[in-house]
């Protein structure tokens, strides 16, 4: 069970200043099964993101980070800097 959760594979896409700082806009990661593990993976892999105010969308829905929701396998996770359309 633990093994299975840790090997959960997700796609992470990044936009705007996040993509610029990460020097990529798409990546895949294992072992991400909830928002907490995502945040900790990002902090380790991409310390350049630490000062950014990023929202997170899972399968195109923005998640409230106050509750630590789980991330389904094969989810599309998006890292969204503050919007500036218009």
């Amino acid at each position, binding site marked *: 069970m633990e093994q299975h959760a840790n090997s959960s594979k997700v796609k992470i896409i990044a936009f705007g200043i996040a993509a*610029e700082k990460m020097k990529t806009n798409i990546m895949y990661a294992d072992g991400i099964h909830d928002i907490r593990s995502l945040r900790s993976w990002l902090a380790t892999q991409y310390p350049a993101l630490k000062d950014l105010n990023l929202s997170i969308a899972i399968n195109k829905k923005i998640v409230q980070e106050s509750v630590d929701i789980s991330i389904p396998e094969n989810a599309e996770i998006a890292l969204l800097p503050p919007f500036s359309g218009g």
Partner: protein
Amino acid sequence: MQHKPKNIFIQGPITAQKIADSISGHSTKTDIGAHSIFLGQVRADSNEQGTVEAIEYTAYEEMALERAHEIREEIFVRFELNCMHIYHSLGKVKAGEISLFVFISSKHRKAAIKACEEVVERIKKTLPIWGKEIMQGNKSTWKENN
């Protein structure tokens, strides 16, 4: 029934001709009494990096289209409207050019005006679109809406 969201994205600036064509296209809808239109124009703002020459827009397109579709549905429930059109640029839009075009039509002015105001607010606050301000000499800064 799940509708396929309408495309809202236009490559490059939104031209005055496009706006004129949209307006003309409504002349056969004779139950419309009021159009409220909002246009966002790229400003040549100055900051420590220089003066903005253009904004380069990118978007999380699939999410933006879904969200625009939700905005549409929410606004049609709240106001008595005849039509609503939203267009947003992707790619480079120079200072003085138009990057956002919201066009709301109703029988009465108040519904059209209020709905347009609301749609513009929601676009600015909830559509995953980003503008990178391009200055002279390849400098750039990321815009943030307030």
